[in-house]
């Protein structure tokens, strides 16, 4: 009897996993199709106006002596009225020469006003909160320390706020070290799919476009009214996205606001990064899944997309269990779940094994970026799939542990690989 119930549960879990995989496969296929053939929504970069908002650029930094000159020099060259601009590098408990270098910039440029944090309360959200207290701009734009914005980037991002509905804007990041090794090459094509196809399609379809935490901006008043950044959350960017959407604000995506970034060059660093993203994202999922369902400001399709987006870092764990489950059913001789026509469901679902859906998006994105030859690398993403499944599952378990034990999150910065000598 007990065995019978166990097998029944395993079979039900099998069907649920297969259904989830199919739903996500369809979702990503729709996005890929929309990007290729659907109606593309205009962004605001065509607008010319001399009524621009005041902007504070926040740059969280922890031991960034090697790279901080890149972002600051780029921002100094930006075409934005300097009377409407301030740059606030946030030196967060650095132990290298970050403080000294920032103070030198402050002496040379009055609109660069660093803050130096020397406290136990480390981390990006805490640093941003401190900077928000002194920021004068109506619009806050955040860059990571290793980014290199183009001259028109600030204007490009700030223009979105001419629209009274826009609460936040997200640009596109492009790896500059994509040719370093196999990992960076694969991350390059993943980024292409994620931005050029996925984000743009969600923007076209007026779904939940994500604020990514960097190369993006938001209205200062909204974040302050809602209590600032939550320091208990690792994924403050995802948290901001849902906070804004639930309150009726929109996050828009600026595909042409492109900025170079550095991607991890070793599998160890990438593992830590993806595990951290998973933990943070799932933390946001626990907090926002019910408010997303209940929100009066979201359409039905936005709620569906929002829920699917929130669950995206839980799916690999569900799939991992599903794989183990299916092996168990196989060896128990209980794989005969459904007959006839329903077999197609399973074949279809297992053919989207590894969530082939990203393949459509990445393929479309590479074609649009003029990098269609790199579509030949797609089979190698099979290894990424298993790698991510394992690391994301670990991150999911971390988030469950944090939820149960109320453990305080520990911040870790992604290791840098570039140096100022290696421009």
């Amino acid at each position, binding site marked *: 009897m007990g065995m019978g119930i166990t097998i029944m549960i395993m079979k039900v879990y099998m069907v649920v996993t297969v259904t989830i995989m199919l739903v996500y496969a369809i979702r990503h296929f729709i996005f890929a199709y929309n990007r290729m053939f659907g109606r593309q*929504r*205009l962004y*605001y*970069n*065509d*607008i*010319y*106006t*001399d*009524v621009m*908002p005041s902007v504070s650029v926040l740059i969280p930094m922890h031991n960034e002596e090697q790279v901080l000159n890149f972002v600051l020099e*780029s921002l100094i060259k930006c*075409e934005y009225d300097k009377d409407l601009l301030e740059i606030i590098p946030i030196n967060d408990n650095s132990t290298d020469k970050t403080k000294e270098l920032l103070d030198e910039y402050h002496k040379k440029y009055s609109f660069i006003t660093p803050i130096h944090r020397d406290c136990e309360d480390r981390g990006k959200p805490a640093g941003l909160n401190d900077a928000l207290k002194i920021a004068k701009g*109506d619009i806050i734009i955040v860059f990571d320390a290793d980014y*290199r914005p*183009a*001259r*028109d980037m600030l*204007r490009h991002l700030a223009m979105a*706020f*001419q*629209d*009274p*509905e826009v609460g936040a804007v997200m640009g596109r990041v*492009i*790896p*500059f070290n*994509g*040719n370093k090794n*196999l990992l960076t*090459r694969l991350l*390059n094509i993943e980024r*292409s799919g994620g931005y050029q196809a996925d984000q743009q399609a969600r923007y076209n379809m*007026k779904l939940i476009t994500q604020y990514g935490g960097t190369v993006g901006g938001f*209205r200062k*008043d909204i974040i302050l009214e809602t209590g600032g950044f939550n320091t208990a959350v690792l994924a403050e960017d995802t948290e901001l996205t849902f906070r804004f959407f639930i309150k*009726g604000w929109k996050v828009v995506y600026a595909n042409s606001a*492109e*900025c*170079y970034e550095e991607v991890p060059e070793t599998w160890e660093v990438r593992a830590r990064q993806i595990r951290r993203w998973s933990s943070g994202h799932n933390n946001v999922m626990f907090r926002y899944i019910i408010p997303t369902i209940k929100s009066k400001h979201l359409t039905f399709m936005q709620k569906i997309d929002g829920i699917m987006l929130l669950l995206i870092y839980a799916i690999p764990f569900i799939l991992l269990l599903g794989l183990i489950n299916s092996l168990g059913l196989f060896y128990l001789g209980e794989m005969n779940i459904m007959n006839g026509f329903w077999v197609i469901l399973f074949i279809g679902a297992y053919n989207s094994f590894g969530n082939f859906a990203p393949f459509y998006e990445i393929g479309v994105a590479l074609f649009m*970026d*003029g*990098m269609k*030859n*790199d579509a*030949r*690398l*797609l*089979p*190698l993403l*099979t290894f990424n799939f298993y790698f991510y499944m394992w690391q994301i599952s670990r991150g999911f378990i971390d988030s469950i542990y944090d939820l149960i034990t109320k453990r305080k999150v520990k911040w870790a910065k992604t290791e840098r690989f570039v140096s100022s000598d290696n421009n």
Partner: protein
Amino acid sequence: MIIIISIAFVVMLLFPIVGAYWFYKKVKGDILYINQDRIRDPRYFAVSFTKMMDKQFESFEQGESLHLSREEKILLADEIINYPNPCEAVVIAEKYDFNPPGKIEFNKEIYAMKNSKIMDHVQIRAIACKKDLVIGSNVRILRWADAVGKLIAKDDCDLGISTTSTKEIVIGNRCDFRRLYAPEIYLGQKEKTKIKVEDNLNKLNDFNLLGKIKYDLKYIDESMANNDGIIDFSIVSKYSLTVLEDLTINGNIRSGKKLRICDNVKITGNVFVEDDIFIGRNVVILGTVFSQGNIKVEEGSVIGKKNSISSVIARGTITFEKNCVVYGYISNEQGGQTY
């Protein structure tokens, strides 16, 4: 048999992976290029063309060609009476006004360093004029036209992809356009009778980028006005929205569907709409008008403010009736027209 099938399975499983790895080893990947120094300039075509021409022309000797993006034959307009038709050379008018006869096709760029007057029924690929440019009726511009001085286009012209001026543009009736840029753009008008925008309209207060907002309205009417008769908030609505006549709104408007602005409305802020916008007669909008659909502007409406730049942007079409004025920039993806 099982061994053969197993081997076939393994080969088929590994084949794409081996192929992908071989490709990775043999072919270096592409890093997308970002032009870090790029600045958007509505007069980009003319500015880059004239810069190139001025540099090359310094050392030009008669009979030679110039190397622009490739070797181009040059025709000096100052010495020409009869143009070949079609004209396949880049034309430069250095000392005298450029006034070619009608019914000619110029298939290369024209660089006029003085005034220029294009007669009726001429087709031009592109023209950069350092002073005033007058475009006659039924002229077709294939790519762009720019004037450092005034640019006047008469009726029934096709103004190509981009028409720009550093001073003002006056466009007649039944003209087609894609992008227009000038501090003052007079649409559906003649130079001698162009309307004068009332000064008091320029005194409307600038708006706050983010003031008080009311959500999900379908109509804006006078009952919402304050004691001064002004509607003092922005509107963000997921519905189609209608703004009734004679109202003044000190704020922005955002509609998730269509927007209709009735006659004599004044709006100090921006207007953003997911679908079509219909702007009635004698409407004034100081900010930017942006639509993911089409925009229709009726007679006598003004968008923008003197000595300031605003934009009218549509993913679809834009049509202007007569006597409209825009201060700044107009852009559409599917065709603009003056009535």
